[in-house]
Structures are given as C-alpha cells and as structure tokens.
C-alpha cells in the first residue's frame, strides 16, 4: 500500500491532538504517568481488537505476549550489555512468533473459541510459572530491573514526558494501522470469515492464513507495547503482566466498543479513570472490576463508541 492511499481519519488526529497537549496542561508526574498508562493500554486494546474483535480468536494471554517481549528485550540487553533499542525487535519477533503459533495450532486443530480461550489461559499460567521458575534469569517474583532505555528528546523534555510522547506516537501509528487494516484485503477477508466461515472457505479465502496474520500483527503490537511498558515502568515482574491485565484490556474493549476505531481510546480512558479513582478500595477494586465486567457483558455489549456513532448518524439523518 502506498502512503498516498493511507487512510487517516480526522477524528483520530483530533483525539491524539488532545492527548498531545495533556502534559502541557499538567506536568504533574503522577498525571503524566496516568496519561502514559492510558495511551499504552489503548495500544493493547487495539491489538485485542484485531485478535479478538476482527479475527475472533479469544486470546487470554495478551499480557503474557506483552511480557515475553519485555523480558526478552531486557534480558538480552542486560546479558550482552547492548542498547535496548537493538533488542526490542528480538522481543517483538519472539512474541509475534508465539502468537502466530498459538493461532496456527488452534485453527489447524479446529478448536472452537472456548478451547482457544482455555489453551491461551493455560499458556498464561505456563508463562507465569516459567518466569517464576527461571529465578536466576528473571529474578522470579521480585521482578527484574530493566536496563535504561533512551527515549527520543528526553534531554529536552525530560524522561517522563519523552516516554509519554514516544508511546503516544506508537499508539497513534497503531490506531492508523487498525483503520487501514479494516479496509485492506486482510480486513475484508476477516469480515467474510466472521460472517460465514464456510462460505469464506468455499470462495477461496485462506482462513488459516488470515487468522494467523491477524494474530501475529496483534501479538507484535502487544510486544512493542509490552517492551515500552517494561522500560517505562523500570521493572518487569509476573505481577506486571498478570491475567488481570487481560481482564482490564477486555473490559476496555467491551466498554469502548469491539470492532470500532475509537472504542479502544474511549475504553482505556474510561477504565483507567475508574481504576485510578477506586485505587483506595484495596482488594475491593477486584470486586469493582468484576461488577463492571458482568454488567457490561450483560447489558452493554455494543460499547460506547457504537452508541455515539448511532446517535451521530441519527442526528445527521434528522438534519437532512
């Protein structure tokens, strides 16, 4: 695809313009940290939107895929003493390969969504146990202090703000990638497979190939986001990449609107806001997340973004 045919919807630019001026409004370190987490999670939710939404593969190992790349990149940098930017690609490749393998095996074995969920859930548990077990390499439960990553323009803007802008641009690119993916051959093929898998196969759409590609792209996004997360956070541990991150991602996806362009942004803003305001509740935060999940899934499966879109269509319809 040439750059000229690249589709960049205007609202996305407006969204990101708003995000871009946030650190200018408040440079409070706590606030900047929250902004960074929102934007980072949005990239994870775009990945989930591709894997779970577009290709309907219920991956419950998204945090593990992010974690694999974060650990790989950090460990390689520490071991060889080289710049983390050089090891990030290795982390991405590793995670994308694992994601592709999980997807390929599930499709070839004809697993239904529920079994994909169980396999990937088991994979998450394996990931956690491998990290805990390889204590000499990963520092186990205590976590590994990541090497220092140089963020572009950190000399001018300061580390915190520089990392925010790097991650913001990454998420912007991811959102544009998603917008174009949906309109591409791949997106159209995935839509055909979703609506009727058998007919899609009959007309010659290679179900395995497109699903594996979707899973690899999604895993690659998770991987780069995961590596950024590790370096931004200063350490990686099993707790940082635990299953509750998957739950948060799914909540954001469902709340914002699955298979929508703006859903991941809306969802991550809303859920991070809720999580931050309920921080004082301790263990009850978990309860709160649970209630949110049950209520959202039962009553609100189409998400905020579709409702806004429908309202907009209605309004413009009345205007004509």
């Amino acid at each position, binding site marked *: 695809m040439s750059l000229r045919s690249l589709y960049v919807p205007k609202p996305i630019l407006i969204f990101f313009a708003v995000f871009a001026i946030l650190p200018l409004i408040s440079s409070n370190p706590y606030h900047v940290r929250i902004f960074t987490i929102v934007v980072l999670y949005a990239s994870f939710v775009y990945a989930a939107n591709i894997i779970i939404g577009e290709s309907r593969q219920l991956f419950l190992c998204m945090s593990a895929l992010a974690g694999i790349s974060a650990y790989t990149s950090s460990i390689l940098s520490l071991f060889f003493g080289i710049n983390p930017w050089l090891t990030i690609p290795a982390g991405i490749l590793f995670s994308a390969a694992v994601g592709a393998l999980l997807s390929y*095996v599930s499709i070839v074995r004809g*697993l239904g969504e529920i079994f994909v969920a169980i396999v990937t859930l*088991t994979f998450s548990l*394996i990931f956690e146990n491998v990290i805990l077990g390889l204590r000499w390499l990963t520092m186990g439960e205590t976590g590994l202090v990541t090497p220092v990553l140089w963020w572009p323009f950190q000399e001018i803007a300061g580390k915190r703000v520089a990392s925010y802008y790097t991650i913001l641009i990454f998420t912007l690119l991811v959102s544009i990638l998603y917008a174009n993916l949906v309109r591409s051959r791949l997106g159209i093929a995935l839509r055909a497979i979703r609506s009727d898998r058998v007919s899609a196969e009959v007309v010659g759409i290679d179900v395995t190939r497109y699903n594996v590609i979707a899973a690899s792209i999604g895993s690659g996004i998770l991987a780069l986001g995961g590596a950024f997360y590790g370096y931004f956070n200063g350490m990686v541990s099993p707790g940082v990449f635990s299953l509750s991150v998957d739950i948060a991602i799914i909540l954001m996806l469902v709340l914002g609107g699955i298979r929508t362009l703006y859903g991941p942004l809306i969802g991550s803003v809303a859920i991070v806001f809720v999580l931050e305001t309920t921080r004082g509740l301790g263990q*009850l935060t*978990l309860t709160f997340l*649970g209630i949110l999940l049950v209520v959202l899934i039962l009553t609100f*499966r189409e998400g905020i973004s579709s409702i806004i879109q429908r309202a907009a269509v209605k309004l413009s319809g009345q205007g004509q």
Partner: protein
Amino acid sequence: MIHETLQAIAGGMVEVVIDGILFGLQLSLLAVGLVLIFGLGGILNLAHGEFVIITGIISVVLISSGWNPFIAISAAIFLSGLLGLALDRTVLRPVYKLKGEMEVLVGLFVTLGLAFILEGITSYLFPGFYFSVRIPVETINIMGLSFRASALVSGLISFVSLYLLLIFLGRTMTGKAIRAALQNQTGSRVCGIDVERMRTLVFFLGGLMAGLASLAKGVASSVEPGSGLELTSYALIVGVVGGVRSVYGAMVAGVLLGVVNAIASYLLGTYLTLIILLGIVVVVILYKPSGLFAGGV
C-alpha cells in the same frame, strides 16, 4: 547395594503413588462440579473455585459462632449448593437467551466477573483467614507403609462423595433425567423432562460438589480466600484432560493427574511439575479436544 537403593526408591514410590491417588480424588471432586455444569448449562463456570472458598468461610463463621462443627460444615456445603442454584436463576438467566458460541462466551465472561467479585469481597472481608479441619491422628500405618491421616480422610471424603454422585446419576430416575438432558435436550423434552429444571438442579449439584471439595481440601490442607481462580484452573485442567463434558472422564483424569503430580514432584520438584501438568493440558487439547476419557456421562 544398588539393589537396595532401588528397593528403597520403589518403597518410597508406592507411598508417593498412593498419596497421588488421594490427592487426585480431591482434584476429581473439585472438577466434577465444573464439568456437570458445563455439560448441561453450557457455562464454563470460572467462579467454581470461589464456591470452595465461600464454603470454607461460612463453615468457620458458623463454627466460631458456636455451631456444632459437623452441622456447621454440612450447612455450609448446602449453602454452596444454593449459591449455585442462585447463580442459575439470576445472573445467568439473560445468558441462556443467547445462542451457540455467544452463550458460551458471554457465560465465560459473566462467571469470570463473578469470580473477581467474590475473590475481591472474600479477600477484603477475611484477610489472613483459613479453613482447616484437624484430624486428631497424625499418621496411619498400613502394611508397613505410613500415611498422613489427613490425606487418607480427605481421600475418603472425596471417594464417598464421588461414589454417591455416581449412584445418584446412574440409579435414580432424576439422575437419569440429568444424564438424558446432557445427551439430548429435545429427546428429554419428548420424555416430559423439564430441561431448565434439570439445569438448575445441576447447578445446585455443582455447588454441592464444590462445597464437599472444600471440606476435602480443608481436611488435607487448608482453604484460603484469594486462591479461588487457582482452584478453578485446577478444575479446568482436570476437566479438559478428562473431556469437558464427561463426569466419569473428570473422575479418572483427576486421579491420573494426581498420580502424575505426585511422581513428578517427588522426582523433579514442584516447579517442573506444574509445567508438566499444564503441558499435558495443552497436548490433550491439541490432540484430543474431546478429552482422554470422554464418552459416557
């Protein structure tokens, strides 16, 4: 010399295997409720482990408020059954209206949410709490081999519970109707069986089994808030290996995995054991998604 060493290992091995069987029975009991509910309800109840925790909490609360321990624990197990029944009658009602994969997926998320809700509440209200039933005797010697009394009693409780469940499903008309509903819902309706009522009953039974699993675990070790999802994943592992819809399969798979677990942790240590168990799950799902012992209910 070598001969004697081998003999010592073999002697140790017998104890290890029997220990594995006893633990495996506990796993079977834990899994059987999950499998029953998935078979008829089509709901993979990820809140299953929370039932175990809640039974433990209710038992201790009742005992500490002066109830006879036996009555308190029985009441708690019964309440766990009622909790299953309540789950079926309330939050899952809207899920049943959906069709096919959608029902399964939404059910998965609803019960996951429920697991979070219960895990949060129980850890918040009862931090540092544990449910444990002490057996007055430390060890029991049988034919020159010595066993922990708690493991034996726990195994016995599990075995009796599973046996009674099998009798109920195999011999009584209601039990047969449940199996019928698991196999063919239209056929059941043609026989005059109210499939929805059977489903409610299965949720009650599933809760009851989780309650009994709580007792078995409380006798063998202890039950603590915050470990619900871990218990659910054990049940899931057993269920998947046995065949997610097969009650018999879950029973056999539980014992098998218990033995594998005991031997592997004896020879290789706990860390590799868990990886081996999870590896078995992945291999089974990939090569025989219907489970190793599927067939029959």
